[in-house]
Every structure is written in C-alpha cells, then in structure tokens.
C-alpha cells in the first residue's frame, strides 16, 4: 500500500512566524488531503489537493504529484494553529472508494 511520511515530527514557533510542513508519499495518488487535529480530537479538513496549489487565508498547500510530495505553508502563525497536522493519501483501485493512508503527523506548538 501507499506509504506516507511527514516532517518534521515536532515544530515550535513564535507567534507570527511562518512554517512549512512536508508530506512524502510513495505512489501515485488521486487523493491527497491535509487535516488539522484540534485539542478535542476533531479532524478539520484543510485542503483536498492531489495536485497543484490552493490557498485559504493564512494557509496554502502545494502538491507536486510527479515528485510525490506535498507542502503545507502556514504564514503569520497564531496560537490557535497549535495541534497536529496530518497528511493523508489515497488511490482508488477498485472503484469502491479510496482508503486514506495517514502520516504520523507534525505536532505544532505556537508560543506567544
């Protein structure tokens, strides 16, 4: 199956700093999603981005499918950005949907 690796595993930032989180995946995919897990454990859908670039406020993401990686950019970080960021990748082989394989996450802490 698809392997997904994320880096760095941990990141501490001062409020206002920018950061880049990376996700490498081992095979071609038709689904690549980024999630933020909040302190209550909920998975907040940030981006569906199997290729190309998208932006949403202070967050943006880029996936280079041919090189099998995706980047999540956080600009002007705020304390509310703290939490775990997961990348998940999937590929529909059977026509019955695509299971997502999650990475191990990046634990982000933003300090005042």
């Amino acid at each position, binding site marked *: 199956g698809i392997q997904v690796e994320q880096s760095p595993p941990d990141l501490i930032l001062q409020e206002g700093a920018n950061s880049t989180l990376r996700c490498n995946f081992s095979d071609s995919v*038709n*689904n690549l*999603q980024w*999630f933020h897990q909040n302190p*209550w*454990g*909920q*998975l907040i*859908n940030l981006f*569906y981005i*199997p290729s190309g670039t998208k932006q949403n406020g202070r967050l943006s993401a880029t996936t280079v499918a041919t090189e099998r990686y995706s980047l999540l950019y956080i600009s002007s970080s705020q304390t509310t950005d703290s939490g775990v960021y*997961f990348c*998940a990748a*999937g590929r*529909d082989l*059977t*026509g*019955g*949907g*695509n*299971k*997502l*394989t*999650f*990475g*191990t*996450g990046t634990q982000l802490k933003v300090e005042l």
Partner: protein
Amino acid sequence: EPEVTQTPSHQVTQMGQEVILRCVPISNHLYFYWYRQILGQKVEFLVSFYNNEISEKSEIFDDQFSVERPDGSNFTLKIRSTKLEDSAMYFCASSGALGQKPYEQYFGPGTRLTVT
C-alpha cells in the same frame, strides 16, 4: 454546509460488551468509511463501504467488527465483544455524490470509545 455527524461523542463500555457507533454521512454521498485513532498514534483505515457492501477492509477489521447501512441515512460500526485495545477515537467519513469522483473525504467529529 453539509457535515458528517456521529453519536455518541463518548462511549464507555466494559470489556466483552457489544457497542454500536453511529454515523450520519452527508446525504448525497455514496462512499462511506470508518477509521480509528488510538491515543497518540496516527489515524488508521478500518473499512470502506459502497453499493451496500464492503469494498475494502484492513487487517484490523476482523470478525469482531461489522458495518451496516440500515436505512438511507445511517452508517453503523458494531464491535461484537470489545477488548481493552479497542479503546480509540473512531471516525466516520463519507465521499462522492452521484456523478462525482469519490476521492475527497469528509470526516465526522469522532466517537471516543473507552473500554474498561
């Protein structure tokens, strides 16, 4: 905006008991999934369901687990005889309306299952 809902938000059960976790997927979606996350670990795929049958399952999804879509709106995960190691957050997800590709998945808020 349509969303996936799950009930209950937290369930405590004794080892050996049966539990049913409930999900209401987005109403026009056709593909349904269950995932779990043991505390401090990554999210793991359990099962996908399409056209009233399981389309794929992981090795975690053994005979103790079953899924059902009993009516047009609910999607359930049953654990027949819970073990301590079943304690985890369980997420339901759905994707793919008619005519759409099934790829982008929308997750519910999760049910935290604690087995004592």
